[in-house]
């Protein structure tokens, strides 16, 4: 029973973070039609910046805000410097085929990931370092028993749920959010009706960069920080996004919690080594049974 509770709680707080990662992937996929494999590289980079600020004596909260802003700025820069020139190049011979048009941005994002990881290695050395949590990481004591749930977990879940709620409100209630949804639906028509699609696309990158930096800040206290630590998180976030449906933000959240639970139960009842195989099994299962994901639109892109 104790193991079960521990797995459940850890699955919830980890799942919240995976939901955030998946949301970041989904926003860029909808907004720009690109699956951004560099996303957790950006998160790693901004978390390193926060870590450096904290070691230099700045407060945790200042570093927290700066990291999120850096994540957003980095997203915009990647869009303007790499992805936009790519999408303007569609007329070249190599990009004339549909499959290469999908593959080239993926290759570019892998290049960006490589650059960020190498830069982080050069600037901050490759050895792992810890990252502080703003709240205690000891379990609550209920009736004399230490529960596997910490105040940091409460903080994580609160922050993630607030972010998810604000994102939903933003997309549903604001004009800019509406413009972004329109661009996602059909960028040609959106542009014809006066929406600056370049702007909304950059905004998607900014949102996704901020969300993934937040995820990086929330997950590194329980793992460690090194140039490669967040690779696994990206894989998990990708699986979560596919499980929920790549074009559905709500699906990403559901997928995040689901995958978080699977991973947590596998590592509590099996061995942590099996996590990779469990992720692969979940991914293949979803792609075979329901390729569009739980909440994916019926006429989603062909997979």
């Amino acid at each position: 029973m104790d193991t079960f509770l521990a797995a459940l709680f850890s699955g919830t707080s980890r799942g919240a973070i995976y939901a955030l990662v998946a949301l970041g992937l989904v926003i860029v996929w909808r907004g720009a039609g690109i699956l951004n494999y560099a996303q957790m590289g950006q998160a790693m980079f901004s978390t390193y910046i926060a870590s450096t600020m904290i070691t230099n004596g700045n407060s945790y909260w200042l570093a927290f805000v700066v990291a999120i802003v850096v994540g957003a700025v980095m997203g915009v820069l990647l869009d303007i410097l790499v992805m936009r020139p790519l999408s303007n190049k569609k007329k070249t011979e190599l990009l004339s085929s549909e499959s290469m048009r999908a593959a080239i941005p993926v290759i570019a994002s892998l290049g960006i990931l490589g650059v960020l990881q190498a830069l982080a290695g050069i600037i901050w050395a490759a050895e792992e370092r810890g990252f502080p949590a703003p709240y205690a990481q000891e379990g609550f004591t209920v009736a004399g028993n230490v529960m596997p749930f910490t105040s940091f977990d409460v903080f994580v879940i609160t922050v993630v749920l607030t972010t998810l709620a604000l994102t939903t409100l933003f997309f549903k209630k604001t004009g800019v959010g509406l413009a972004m949804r329109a661009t996602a639906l059909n960028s040609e028509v959106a542009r014809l009706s006066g929406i600056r699609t370049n702007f909304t696309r950059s905004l998607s990158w900014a949102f996704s960069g901020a969300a993934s930096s937040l995820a990086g800040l929330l997950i590194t206290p329980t793992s460690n920080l090194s140039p490669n630590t967040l690779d696994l998180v990206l894989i998990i976030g990708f699986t979560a996004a596919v499980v929920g449906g790549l074009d559905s933000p709500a699906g990403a959240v559901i997928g995040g919690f689901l995958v978080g639970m699977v991973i947590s139960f596998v590592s509590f009842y099996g061995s942590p080594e099996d996590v990779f195989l469990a992720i692969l099994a979940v991914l293949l299962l979803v792609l075979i049974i329901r390729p569009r994901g739980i909440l994916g639109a019926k006429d989603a892109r062909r997979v």
Partner: protein
Amino acid sequence: MRAVSKAKNRSIARKSLRRTIFFVILILLAGSTFEPYNQAQLALVLILFIGVLSVTLLTGISGQLSLGQGALMAVGGYCMALLMTNQGYSLWMAIPLAMVGSALAGLLLGISAARLSGPYLAGTTLVIALAIPTLANRFMSVLKGDEGLPVDVGYPPVWFTNLFGEPSYEEWQLYVALPFAAIALFFASNILLSRTGRMWRAIRDHETAASLSGVNFSRQKIFVFVVSATFAGLSGALYGLRGLVGPSVYPVSLSLLLLTAAVLGGIRSIFGAFIGTVIVVFLPDWIDAILHSFELSEQVSNFLPALVSSLLLILTVVINPAGVAGTHLHKHKHK
């Protein structure tokens, strides 16, 4: 009709053979002038060239982006190492059997991945690249976990030393890799020039149009995976022969290295695959040669090759996606 296609096939085979002979002579000439260190590097080029060809065929020719070639290399490596250490096979027997093993793995992958495209395929194969090496710890008793299985190229047979004298260990590595690289080059060139290559390019350029012209594209897609996996398995087996077959030998970064090489050189051509492999293998040495006077710290020099090759990858994709070799090999297609 049949006679015509037979004559055509023969001329394609002759052309591929000419390329292969030219390639072998070039490598032998270069290898005999190099010092041992560069001979080992050249052997590495030949080994990775086979792996890069698997990317060229799969991604450049048939348009399916896979980030899991490292996992298929691991399958080839482990098949070979198990046959050599447990069954006592020689490497000349073990490597072809390992290629069969990785072809079977490619068949499984192809059947499950043939319906995926673009980012879905890339993500799924990335997960595979991460998951497969962990099997080594799952089946500890056979695959020996993180320790891995030590294998090497051994010593040349007596007839070889009698004919050509005693080669150094590095030289022997080169001579083991060369026949396999030559065979791989011959087959890749044949495929690219033949009807099969045309079908694969048709799938890449327009699936609907391809299937309307009578290409059974789901079968061809699976076939591409099998062929590409055979190349990757061969490359992985030879890669393991450099000393060890283990999970740390086939990390995800190996898959990304192959992709980087393929894109830098030119993802659609065999020549490009070779150029790209030379670039990624010798890049650390070149950087070292240029910057050794600056007394860089170890931290910087460790990550500099990765930084430069990633930057080159981005620049290639943004400025000239066709890579160094361009697309001159198939110019006839886009007049």
